[in-house]
């Protein structure tokens, strides 16, 4: 899969991301960097362990990364989760986390399917 195909697959805007990350080379660099990022794992553990502050920070960071990386679905689910844990861990948090997990898995899968340069 090319970078352009990846963004089509994830519903992102390829032209936007090219302007923001300036080149396919840099986009590829940050896509691969995203695989190493531990924010999702931190988020998952925090929600499961009932750590509200940690959960909020991680959800918020994941939302920010999705914005900058141009992942609209992961943005949408992580944004909802952010609001559901902003001041307390609401009952919806667990199910919203499932949606985030699914979107995250799809994103990771797509990145892993990128062609070698």
């Amino acid at each position: 899969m090319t970078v352009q195909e990846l963004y089509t697959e994830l519903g992102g805007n390829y032209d936007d991301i090219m302007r923001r990350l300036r080149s396919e080379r840099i986009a590829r660099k940050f896509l691969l960097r995203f695989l190493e990022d531990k924010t999702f794992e931190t988020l998952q553990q925090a929600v499961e362990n009932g750590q509200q502050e940690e959960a909020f920070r991680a959800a918020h960071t994941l939302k920010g990364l999705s914005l900058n990386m141009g992942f609209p679905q992961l943005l949408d689910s992580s944004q909802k989760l952010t609001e559901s844990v902003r001041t307390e861990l609401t009952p919806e948090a667990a199910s919203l986390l499932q949606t985030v997990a699914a979107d995250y898995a799809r994103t990771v899968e797509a990145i892993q399917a990128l062609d070698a340069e």
Partner: protein
Amino acid sequence: MQKTDTMKETILVVDDSAMNREFLLDILEDKYKVIEAENGLQALEVLEEKGASISLVLLDIVMPEMDGFEVLVQMNQRGWMESIPVIMISSENAYDVIDKAYDLGVTDFINRPFDPNVVLHRVANTIMLYVKQRKLSDMVAEEIAKREKSNNLMISILSHIVEFRNGESGLHTLHIRIITEKLLRGLQKKSVISMSEEEISCISIASTLHDIGKLSISEEILNKPGKLTDEEFVIMKKHSSIGAEMLKGLKGEYNDPLLDRAYEISRWHHERYDGRGYPDGLAGDQIPISAQIVSIADVYDALTSERCYKKAFSHETAIEMIMAGKCGTFNPVLLECLQDISDELKYGI
């Protein structure tokens, strides 16, 4: 032109997400030197250490340990916001968050996702604005210093003229000024007065004009070697009220605390705490503190200097005479201060 590392401005990037910091690093590293901090506490440590060599802070809001808002509060408290601009970067787009950031003094607020060109332009503009502002405030400070210097010069010339005519050594007004300042600081230390540096400096400068009224006293009386007759002494004593009148004439034109202090000092520097001085026979705290201080400074310096009518007394004798009330009664707190600074006077002037 490729900038070498030492020529580059330094930017502090504060974000708990390593990847977020990398986005910014990627955009900035060609043109700037970037220092990273993972949370608010680390950011404050870097600022504490590097001070104004940091040209700009890019600050995230949501962070562990200390969040971005608290960083701003701390920077305000420490007076750093004046010299170090902050641009906030966040995916928070609620208006109250943005308002709060601006209220705390950030220069700009950048939302995620950010465009690299926008970031670069805002960063460059903000740094340039602060560089210009710094240059401008340096220029203003320099101008003020220049003006103060020339003001001081004019006052020195004036008091020197008075001294010259009195046949006093050129050092009398300088001594008065030094002793006055020392006594003021002594009173400040005892918490008797609470004055700003500006007020202390104002009274010290005004003290040099205490004898300005002597310009209208004839030289025969001023420089008479022996004791003055009663008649001559009556004329001599007029110098304090005459000096005050001279200064009063300027008050309509210039409304300046220096004139007010100089007026008080000139008119009342021969008053005594028990009401037995001249010209108005004021007593106790009716006499402005400025005049009380200058009167004691004047007496000390007159005693320890040689004059046409007397030899110089030693420091010890002079202090003894003042403490014993040989030169009139002074405010007891001021006498205490005089003793406190006695060693400084003996060795310092």
